[in-house]
């Protein structure tokens, strides 16, 4: 069997989420990876991908159409490559989630999203109902298209391999959508999905100004900063901070939830963290039911004290 893993390589690097997708595909036979991007980034991305151990071949497609991860050209490319593969896999990132269902429909396949366990080549476990239920599914499709819940798979190493690189000629297609602009949150901190420690804030932070109290603690721990849906909806932080069922799914070694009550939707995104700390003034808050260590009290006193105690 052979699997193709679509990597999110548009910025010229291979993110940890894509390496988790490769790890997931390891049980599915030989692995080729597909690297796409604009003419400026493709060489660097391909070189990075080639260093990942365990890859049979790096296949690349470049051009303006691929510079921003648009689903239409990516899906058309996957369809063109599909005859070579039994499984097509991607991380459940914005690009993977947009592209794989589109490609699956064109291949007449019912794709399988958010896979958290691969039992065998046709049997997969995935969460439903916001992670409150796990379903084991067996696909009867000849080909399987999967997106991977990256928090469930430890990423493969970034270095150590030397896979050959093959440039592809992508299929022609009329572009009906066009990238206009991006507003990316700039941060020096680790990505949420890749962070070993996450400091996360909710309604209890009260304002965008209040949210800043988490920064020294995150700095001290080398942590990423996350947020509950309420904190994002209230405008304390940008949307890409959101952890939860419809935000990012994370599983760091340490998750510190500050002023987060613990709605089901939030728990769905972080309850696989190895150690959870909850700081909340409401001792009845549901977050304490999943926390390993709970501290009841005013986070505006506790968080600075914790930062100082770690200093």
């Amino acid at each position, binding site marked *: 069997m052979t699997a193709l893993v679509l990597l999110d390589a548009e910025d010229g690097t291979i993110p940890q989420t894509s390496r988790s997708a490769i790890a997931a595909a390891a049980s599915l036979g030989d692995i080729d990876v597909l690297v796409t991007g604009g003419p400026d980034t493709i060489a660097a991305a391909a070189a990075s991908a080639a260093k990942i151990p365990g890859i049979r071949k790096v296949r690349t497609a470049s051009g303006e159409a691929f510079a921003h991860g648009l689903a239409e050209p990516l899906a058309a490319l996957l369809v063109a490559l599909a005859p070579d593969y039994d499984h097509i896999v991607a991380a459940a990132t914005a690009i993977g989630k947009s592209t794989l269902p589109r490609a699956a429909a064109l291949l007449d396949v019912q794709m399988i999203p958010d896979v958290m366990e691969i039992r065998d080549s046709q049997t997969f476990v995935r969460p439903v109902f916001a992670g409150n239920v796990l379903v084991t599914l067996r696909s009867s499709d000849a080909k399987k298209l999967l997106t991977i819940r990256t928090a469930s798979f430890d990423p493969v190493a970034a270095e150590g391999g030397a896979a050959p690189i093959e440039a592809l000629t992508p299929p022609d297609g009329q572009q009906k959508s066009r990238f206009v602009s991006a*507003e990316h949150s700039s941060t020096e901190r680790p990505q949420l999905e890749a962070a070993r420690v996450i400091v996360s804030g909710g309604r209890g932070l009260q304002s965008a100004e209040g949210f800043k109290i988490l920064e020294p603690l995150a700095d001290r721990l080398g942590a990423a900063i996350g947020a509950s849906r309420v904190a994002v909806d209230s405008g304390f932080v940008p949307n890409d901070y959101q952890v939860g069922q419809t935000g990012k799914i994370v599983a760091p070694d*340490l998750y510190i939830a500050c002023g987060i009550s613990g709605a089901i939707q939030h728990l769905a995104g972080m309850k696989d963290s190895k*150690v959870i700390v909850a700081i909340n003034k409401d001792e009845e808050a549901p977050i304490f039911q999943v926390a390993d260590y709970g501290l009841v009290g005013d986070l505006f006193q506790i968080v600075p004290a914790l930062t100082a105690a770690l200093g």
Partner: protein
Amino acid sequence: MKILVPIKRVVDYNVKVRVRRDGGGVETAGVKMSMNPFDEIAVEEALRLREKGVASEILTVSIGVPQAADTLRTALAMGADRAILVQSEESPEPLAVAKILKILVDREKPDLVILGKQAIDDDMNATGQMLAGLLDWPQATFASRVEKTADGLAVTREVDGGSETLALALPAIVTADLRLNEPRYAALPNIMKARKKPLETIAATDLGIDLTRRLAILSMAEPPARKAGIKVGSVAELVEKLRNEAKVI
């Protein structure tokens, strides 16, 4: 512009779901059912485009059991003009749903289809993208803002690193994310009026689409519950535990 909004009847988001004893599904007997919250956002966006003078007609569609007609009435009460129920015994998989929707799109010729980005029951996040693929239309998933432009739509999307804006030619598919809008409640007079709005029923089996599941459900189970830990009394105790017991700092 004509807008089609497919909606799904799901277990209400406030219900704590329980797996049936046979493991083949979740308990739905006596459980409150509602319109999928992301679909409410999709309906609302269509209504707003009509209020801005961009859209002229809003058609809503649901695929499922006869009671999905109640969900369609909710969309009509919010302000949709007419509804189609494609009746089937169970809720088909996204690929089959997309095939049914394609037939309706070919018949109704909307300029825009707005869907919720995912249903909160199966969390598949697939139908919009699949329909876009089958129709060969452009797509913008996870929309947080939709604007009509001279030659199509500008859609701002929530993506991993922040947000981005795409320009789409029409006809197109948009899937709604949480922050696109806050859906309105249907006022009582509108609920009364909605009873008189047209609701057409079609049998899914008459559309010639194979509804056989591709994904057999082998089992369903609740994940192992995470045990509640302990409450610590002070910051010093917390730091001590994290250092010496959990060993994560």
